[in-house]
């Protein structure tokens, strides 16, 4: 009964979202406050209805209502409560519902934020957000049916996919979805400003902020996804260039490009068309990514069960691609640049180079992701495009990007003269050369890691120099003490210095990736109880195995003691673990045993065991800790950049406000 109501709620939401789209669009066209108000109401109503539907599905999951096909497929009685809750996004139908829920949440946030401002834009924004909701509701009503019921009530469910029964797998999809879904908002504003022809500096500021928020979630989501892969899949790595991973990485790349080039538009009124294209591209890549992961068009370990959502997605994709292109072409005359570049040695030029590299990398990743499909259609032969290809093609580009990341901030706006350039570059460059030389002589003679780590150091040096000079300049101007000066600098120039902190995070991630890519050491051993294996100066001793039944699984835990100094000093006993799930015994999951050091992770995977011996894969992964630290810095830096400026709390919003006529 209640589940019938759930599907009815979705149908009502479908109708309302369609109505709201029409009303919003029409209201924007005719400048009717009544129609606009109605579109706001539609946004709130859709959010309420979708939330109610989600609550009903949650109730079904938590109360073990196995007559629901979704609950039967993705839950079981013995599933811990936490995972029953997260099973909402564990399957196709539920995760699409979750998408819609988050989207309507974002829509409400936007509507509430701008309900009295941006009168000219908001009806169109509402319409764009609602049409996206409408599309997902079409899927939920006509294709995937989260509330499909059986005639009878099965005694127990099938259980959640064991791989999803992990803490990271609960938080990581939320972050990722928050990022993906949020990128609809900048697209909605872009469409609105094109439709309303209000293309001034106004939407730029809004959009920058509303891109930064989802960007932060997306970054965090990607990092957490890697963390999950690293801790759970137990193959020693964190990123496999899998189609699903690429699907989350692609919009990140274009959004990052956009976040840089929008600064030029904000400051100089240049690149207006290009920024529109980037916003659109980001949104298209989000939808494309959802499409590829849901339709099974590309093979991936992460793919959802195949269903017939593909054609729907394709239709929607065609709609958003071509209607936007048409709109953009139509409004092209209104998007002329207001100023021009002054010099190649300017930050504008650096941003251009950045955009070139980011979109280049995005193209390469897109190409590599879809190439197997192209190739199979054209040649009929199946090939795979995996990590080696991606590393070879994007590796040099990332290296270049890192170099640019060091150079860019040192260039002033407009033009940097030769002597100033020398002044700026002397120290970082000297330091980097010294580092490279020492590295070459003492550590390793491999070219790529040396170049990569040198670039990392170079970027770090320039950022430190930026902070120092900024603090000094501020002290000279205001006489503040160093701490206040630093604080004020970040507070007042959050965009710039927050950005630097994000860069620092990226540098740490880069260093960790280089360490893992080039200096990983690994061995595969079968140890009898009490036996040891040596790797990279550490000794790993197998002490024994335990088996323990938890809620819905058996946990097999091996105990491995790690010694340093050739067995002289005990560092830690780790317990790599295998979980065998009652409902899915053929899909044992892995929990690796890790001892984290600042310099390297000692990473032990339990592969198999017999009565008195066990097989392990042991990895020594250099610098991996810094990957996660870098992720934290990215979030921190974004928050600093997002923090409202002390003065510009209420920026005049000039586009107009409802008039009592």
């Amino acid at each position, binding site marked *: 009964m209640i589940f019938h109501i759930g599907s009815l709620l979705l149908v009502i939401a479908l109708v309302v979202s369609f109505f709201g789209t029409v009303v919003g669009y029409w209201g924007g066209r005719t400048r009717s406050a009544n129609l606009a108000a109605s579109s706001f109401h539609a946004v709130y109503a859709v959010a309420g209805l979708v939330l109610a539907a989600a609550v009903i599905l949650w109730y079904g999951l938590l109360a073990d209502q196995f007559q629901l096909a979704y609950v039967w497929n993705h839950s079981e009685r013995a599933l811990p409560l936490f995972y029953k809750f997260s099973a909402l996004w564990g399957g196709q139908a539920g995760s699409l519902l979750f998408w819609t829920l988050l989207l309507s949440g974002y829509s409400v946030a936007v509507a509430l934020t701008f309900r009295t401002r941006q009168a000219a834009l908001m009806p169109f924004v509402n319409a764009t957000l609602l049409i996206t909701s409408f599309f997902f509701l079409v899927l939920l009503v006509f294709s995937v049916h989260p509330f499909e019921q059986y005639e009878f009530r099965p005694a127990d469910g099938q259980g959640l996919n064991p791989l999803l029964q992990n803490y990271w797998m609960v938080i990581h999809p939320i972050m990722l979805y928050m990022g993906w879904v949020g990128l609809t908002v900048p697209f909605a504003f872009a469409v609105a400003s094109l439709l309303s022809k209000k293309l001034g500096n106004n939407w730029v500021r809004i959009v920058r902020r509303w891109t930064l928020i989802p960007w932060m979630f997306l970054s965090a989501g990607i990092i957490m996804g890697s963390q999950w892969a690293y801790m759970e899949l137990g193959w020693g790595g964190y990123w496999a260039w899998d189609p699903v991973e690429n699907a989350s990485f692609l919009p990140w790349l274009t959004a990052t490009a956009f976040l840089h080039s929008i600064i030029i538009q904000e400051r100089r009124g240049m690149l207006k068309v290009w920024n529109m294209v980037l916003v659109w591209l980001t949104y298209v890549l989000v939808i494309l990514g959802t499409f590829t992961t849901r339709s099974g068009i590309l093979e991936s370990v992460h793919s959802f069960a195949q269903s017939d959502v593909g054609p729907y997605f394709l239709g929607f994709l065609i709609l958003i691609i071509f209607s936007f292109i048409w709109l953009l072409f139509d409004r092209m005359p209104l998007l002329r640049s207001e100023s021009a570049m002054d010099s190649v040695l300017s930050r504008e030029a650096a941003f251009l180079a950045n955009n070139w590299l980011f979109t280049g990398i995005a193209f390469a990743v897109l*190409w590599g992701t879809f190439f197997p499909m192209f190739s199979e259609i054209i040649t009929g032969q199946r090939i795979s495009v995996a990590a080696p290809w991606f590393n070879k093609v994007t590796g040099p580009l990332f290296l270049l990007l890192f170099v640019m990341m060091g150079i860019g901030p040192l260039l002033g706006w407009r033009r940097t003269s030769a002597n100033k350039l020398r002044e700026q570059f002397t120290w970082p460059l000297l330091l980097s050369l010294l580092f490279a030389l020492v590295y070459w002589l003492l550590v390793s003679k491999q070219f790529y890691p040396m170049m990569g780590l040198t670039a990392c150091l170079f970027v770090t040096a320039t950022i430190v120099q930026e902070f120092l000079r900024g603090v000094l300049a501020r002290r000279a101007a205001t006489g503040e003490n160093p701490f206040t000066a630093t604080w004020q600098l970040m507070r007042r120039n959050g965009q710039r210095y927050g950005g630097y902190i994000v860069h620092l995070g990226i540098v740490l991630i880069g260093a960790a990736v280089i360490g893992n890519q080039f200096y990983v050491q690994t061995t595969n051993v079968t140890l009898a109880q009490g036996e040891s294996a040596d790797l990279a100066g550490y000794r790993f001793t197998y002490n024994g195995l335990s088996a323990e039944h938890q809620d819905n699984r058996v946990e097999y835990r091996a105990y491995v003691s790690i010694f340093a100094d050739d067995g002289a000093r005990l560092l830690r006993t780790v317990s790599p673990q295998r979980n065998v799930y009652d409902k899915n015994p053929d899909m044992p999951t892995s929990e690796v045993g890790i001892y984290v050091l600042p310099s390297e992770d000692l990473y032990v995977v339990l592969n198999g065991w017999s009565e008195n011996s066990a097989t392990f894969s042991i990895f020594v992964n250099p610098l991996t800790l810094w990957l996660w630290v870098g992720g934290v810095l990215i979030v921190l830096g974004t928050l600093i950049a997002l923090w409202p400026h002390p003065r510009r709390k209420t920026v005049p919003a000039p586009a107009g406000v409802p008039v009592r006529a």
Partner: protein
Amino acid sequence: MNRVIHLLRLTLLLFVFLALGQPLYAQDASTVTADQVNEVARELWCPLCSGVRLDGCELKACDQMKDEIAIKLAAGDDTESIKSYFVTQYGPQVLGEPPRSGFNLLAWILPVAVLLGGGLFVLTRGRSMMQDIRPAPVASSERPVPDDDYARRLDEELARHD
């Protein structure tokens, strides 16, 4: 009763894992260590999954592939010939990258071509954008003398603006 079933399952699993852990044809390949096998397996990709490297793959099919590698290593084959054996058996999808020939060459060429083309485009556009603005720096005498009132207002606004 439950416990019995549980124990039964446990022993069954132990057996399965034992079977997984041990090479099936250890007799000829016993001298080859797992590390030597993985050295080769690292350059091959599971043909059944996408994007999973052979040394990290836990499918039984992949374990058999690793056994095959051990046999071939014991027979004195080198990495390249083992790789090419698997390519002829399973097709190029066991390599992590498209072969550099025929249509698949496009996988390698296009990103580079697009990147260079894009770079060229940005460069020419940037240059033409710069030529637009190049005219000589503004001579101050050309500028109309701003009335003090506005200048003062500007200074005030600037002082507030930071």
